[in-house]
């Protein structure tokens, strides 16, 4: 059953915590400066590591002399790739095709460098300063090789090869089509037919996804203590469990010998979802030196070496009838991997392949992807991972279709989107959306936005030839979140399961430890998970504590990425809590001298139906611990483990509307209003949900207007600091207006959907659609992200030059 209501207002009496905007219990430590970041740690005898990074994009190393550096004051050791024969190749977890090419990728490069920032040597010294000083004394000569930075050029015959041994820059090709999936018709045939049918239109566009980077504010930092029986690694990572297993699979250490701890972690957004060379290096050097070692990257190193994201060229073809009904979609994608493969790199565009059909009924679909290597930093997951790219593609095309058919962009969407009675809906891309109500969210957004008034204002300003034009942009989106059924991931050749684990331990005094396999880096897990457990067990919120982010105490987990913490991890917690209740039930029955069948469990209390007699689960726990009088054969504990493997992904949706003002004289774009109505199912903590939405929107707007990782033709990173990579500050963004509709997920017991990625997914097309909406009357038909003043200004001038030329020749 799909329950829909207008807002998350009706709080369930049985569930007093869920839906409550509780202030976060994690705040106090951060507000008082008592947080513990990895870089805050100092251990006895600790040495500091610094790494030497390549200043050139592609070269063979002809000289690499570390002797002078090794003699420098305070230096404990210097190593190159040749000096570390025990280093193992860095693993990739996603082999998207059988013939996928995996280039050699070691913690320290051996013999050659493939991008600016590639690691050449590592120094250990008694202080960070001494290590950095010694780096300058390493004598290295590079024999520079030809460079390729553009993914389309990389595909061409005769292009410089990033990895000559592979004989090609093509990493993998991968495809999807509705005929083989049995989900629809032949898109190529439908497009051919449309081309010769006067009642149909075919719209073709090539769109670019700018290369951006997660830009978490806390630089990555790693500390390894090799002095105890179990080696401990503290790392600013989103994925301590994954780091441990990949370390054991690739480097000379066994899994049981290593404990990985993610202490406080400052942001992630996918950027800290990586098993990094620096992590491997600190471990290798610490084991060699047998003393604790620390490495903390600088911001400039982070910009060069932490993975980047997006960077795609999308060639899209959309066919539709003249009434706006879509008949086919074809997507040909070129995705830039950068020089190496991280753990998910090749799989990111693949995830997008499932999402190009958006919220629409598309009867025929083909997707073809070419992953290519270039001499740039590798790409990998970033807030949305593949889905923002896909959403951008389809949502830009919906606007192009609207222009082609002279329809309102909302109307063209309305004519195609899946209606509430069609759920569960099997898409042409092979997914099954469980629930949704796109009319409801869109109507609410339109009303909040004042769509008609803004259109009227736009007309007035167009007619008046106002130098500041108004543009309105829309994005109606659906997300694929919460990785997800393990068997599906297996089918996609992803080397990991999609389950999540939790243990719940009732303590003798009735307090509760919740152990989670996901870790938080700002998402408020301690608060939200405690709310869930408080409702499930009926114990006070303050009686619950969360333990996570440490492989020693939370021994199983798949960590935090892809908005899976609540929709997958939260269900593991619910499952464990329900098992605790079931374990307590016979003990409660025994205490109450009743039959278990006569017991009901409400608000944390077992009571005998129809009587006043009862006992709380916390009292049951004390009696269980005493174990003086337990029913025969029962274990004296109320602990439970649960591993949840979801039956489906989670499909949050929503409608975003942006109003932008474009100064046609300067090219400057200002976002005047932004309304988003999200449908993320049941809200556990509306305050946290809003915060996630705001953060995501800001990152999405930043992709559309400000941020871009830029390389010169020589492969030099020209936006390598926060001074030239424009992370927005407070004056660059605005106060968002958010609304909610609730269409419960039908695939989990709480009815929740994911939220963390929605803003970053929906904002880029909403903003770019708005910018183009403002500029179309001036003849501008395309613009690439980020829509910087100079680009907008140039587009306006080129368009006016075209029209004048046209006028002259005509």
């Amino acid at each position, binding site marked *: 059953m799909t329950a829909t209501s207008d807002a998350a207002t009706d709080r369930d009496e049985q569930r007093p915590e869920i839906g409550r905007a509780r202030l976060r219990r994690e705040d106090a430590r951060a507000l008082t400066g008592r947080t513990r970041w990895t870089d*805050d740690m100092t251990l006895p005898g600790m040495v500091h590591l610094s790494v030497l990074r390549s200043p050139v994009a592609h070269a063979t190393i002809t000289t690499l002399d570390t002797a002078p550096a090794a003699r420098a004051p305070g230096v404990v050791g210097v190593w190159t790739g040749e000096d570390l024969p025990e280093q193992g190749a860095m693993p990739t977890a996603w082999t998207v095709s059988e013939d996928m090419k995996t280039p050699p990728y070691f913690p320290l490069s051996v013999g050659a460098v493939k991008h600016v920032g590639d690691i050449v040597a590592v120094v250990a010294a008694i202080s960070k300063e001494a290590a950095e000083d010694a780096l300058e004394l390493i004598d290295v000569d590079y024999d520079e090789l030809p460079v390729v930075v553009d993914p389309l050029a990389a595909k061409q015959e005769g292009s410089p090869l990033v990895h000559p041994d592979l004989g090609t820059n093509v990493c993998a090709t991968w495809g999807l089509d509705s005929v083989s999936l049995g989900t629809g018709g032949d898109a190529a045939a439908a497009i051919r037919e449309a081309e010769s049918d006067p009642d149909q239109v075919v719209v073709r566009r090539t769109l670019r996804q700018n290369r951006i980077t997660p830009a978490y*504010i806390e630089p990555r930092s790693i500390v390894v203590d090799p002095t105890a029986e179990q080696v401990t690694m503290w790392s600013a990572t989103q994925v301590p469990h994954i780091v441990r297993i990949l370390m054991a699979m690739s480097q000379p250490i066994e899994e049981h010998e290593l404990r990985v701890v993610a202490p406080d972690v400052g942001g992630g957004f996918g950027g800290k979802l990586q098993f990094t060379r620096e992590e491997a290096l600190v471990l290798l050097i610490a084991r060699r030196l047998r003393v604790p070692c620390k490495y903390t990257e600088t911001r400039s190193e982070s910009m060069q070496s932490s993975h980047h994201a997006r960077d795609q060229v999308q060639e899209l073809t959309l066919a539709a009838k003249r009434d706006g009904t879509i008949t086919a979609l074809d997507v040909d994608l070129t995705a830039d991997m950068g020089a190496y493969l991280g753990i998910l790199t090749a799989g990111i565009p693949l995830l997008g392949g499932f999402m190009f059909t958006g919220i629409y009924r598309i009867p025929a679909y083909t997707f073809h992807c070419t992953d290519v290597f270039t001499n740039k930093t590798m790409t990998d997951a970033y807030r949305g991972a593949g889905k923002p790219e896909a959403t951008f593609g389809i949502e830009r095309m919906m606007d192009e279709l609207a222009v082609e058919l002279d329809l309102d962009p909302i109307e063209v969407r309305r004519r195609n989107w899946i209606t509430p009675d069609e759920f569960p809906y099997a898409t042409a891309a092979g997914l099954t959306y469980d629930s949704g109500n796109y009319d409801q969210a869109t109507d609410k957004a339109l009303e909040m936005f004042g769509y008609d008034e803004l259109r009227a204002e736009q007309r007035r300003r167009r007619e008046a030839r106002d130098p500041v034009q108004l543009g309105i942009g829309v994005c109606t989106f659906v997300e694929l979140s919460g990785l997800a059924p393990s068997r599906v991931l297996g089918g996609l050749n992803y080397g990991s399961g999609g389950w999540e684990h939790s243990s719940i331990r009732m303590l003798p005094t009735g307090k509760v430890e919740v152990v989670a396999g996901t870790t938080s880096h700002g998402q408020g897990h301690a608060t939200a998970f405690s709310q869930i457990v408080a409702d499930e067990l009926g114990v006070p919120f303050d009686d619950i504590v969360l333990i996570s982010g440490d492989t020693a105490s939370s021994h199983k987990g798949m960590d935090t990425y892809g908005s899976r913490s609540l929709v997958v991890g939260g269900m593991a917690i619910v499952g464990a809590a329900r098992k605790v209740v079931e374990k307590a039930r016979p003990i409660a029955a025994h205490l109450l001298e009743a039959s278990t069948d006569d017991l009901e469990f409400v608000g944390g209390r077992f009571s005998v139906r129809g009587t006043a007699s009862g006992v709380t689960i916390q009292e049951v726990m004390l009696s269980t611990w005493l174990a003086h009088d337990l029913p025969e054969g029962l274990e004296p504990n109320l602990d439970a483990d649960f591993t949840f493997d979801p039956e489906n992904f989670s499909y949050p949706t929503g409608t975003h509307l942006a109003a932008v003002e474009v100064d046609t004289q300067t090219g400057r774009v200002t976002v005047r209003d932004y309304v988003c109505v999200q449908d993320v199912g049941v809200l556990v903590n509306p305050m946290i949900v809003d915060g996630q939405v705001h953060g995501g929107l800001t990152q999405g707007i930043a992709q559309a207007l400000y941020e871009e990782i830029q390389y010169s033709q020589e492969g030099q990173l020209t936006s390598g600091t926060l001074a030239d990579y424009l992370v927005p500050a407070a*004056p660059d963004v605005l106060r968002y207006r958010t609304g909610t509709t609730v269409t419960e997920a039908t695939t989990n017991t709480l009815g929740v959907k994911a939220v963390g990625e929605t803003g970053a997914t929906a904002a880029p097309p909403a903003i770019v659609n708005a910018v183009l909406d403002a500029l179309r009357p001036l003849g501008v038909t395309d613009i690439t992200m980020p829509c910087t003043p100079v680009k907008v200004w140039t587009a306006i001038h080129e368009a006016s030059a075209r029209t004048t030329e046209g006028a002259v020749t005509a």
Partner: protein
Amino acid sequence: MARITVDVDGMSYTHDVEPRTLLVHHLRETLGKTGTVVGCDTSNCGACTVLVDGESIKSCSVLAVQADGAEIETVEGLAAADGTMHPVQQAFHEHHGLQCGYCTPGMLMRSVCFVRENPDPSEDEVREGLKGNMCRCTGYQGIVSAVMAYSQAAGEQEAGR
């Protein structure tokens, strides 16, 4: 080496420092005051903001020797001795002005200084006032609301005196 004395959150510290040591490293590494953090190497992010003689400054952009004799306030000294949060901390808590918390020490210190200079700011003024501090998590909305609320609370406190 140069001998310097700094007063940090009410305690006086005298140390020999290398002339090249940045104030932020002196605070974090020598004094163990790790509440103040580093986010960049270009003085852009503001994560390291502290108050030096009442002025908010990015502690990665001054040398420790330049702070000789100064009175420095960091996030660790904001709450009262009994643990009661400073109104700016309370406002950030109530308005969800932080997520991961990494930018938070700098944001708080900047906010204290900003509200002192501009006790009754508009929302735009708050945004301008915080432009040297980056937050990647919150989208600034919670932070801006928090600073508005804090300025009101601070104003009321003044009026009540």
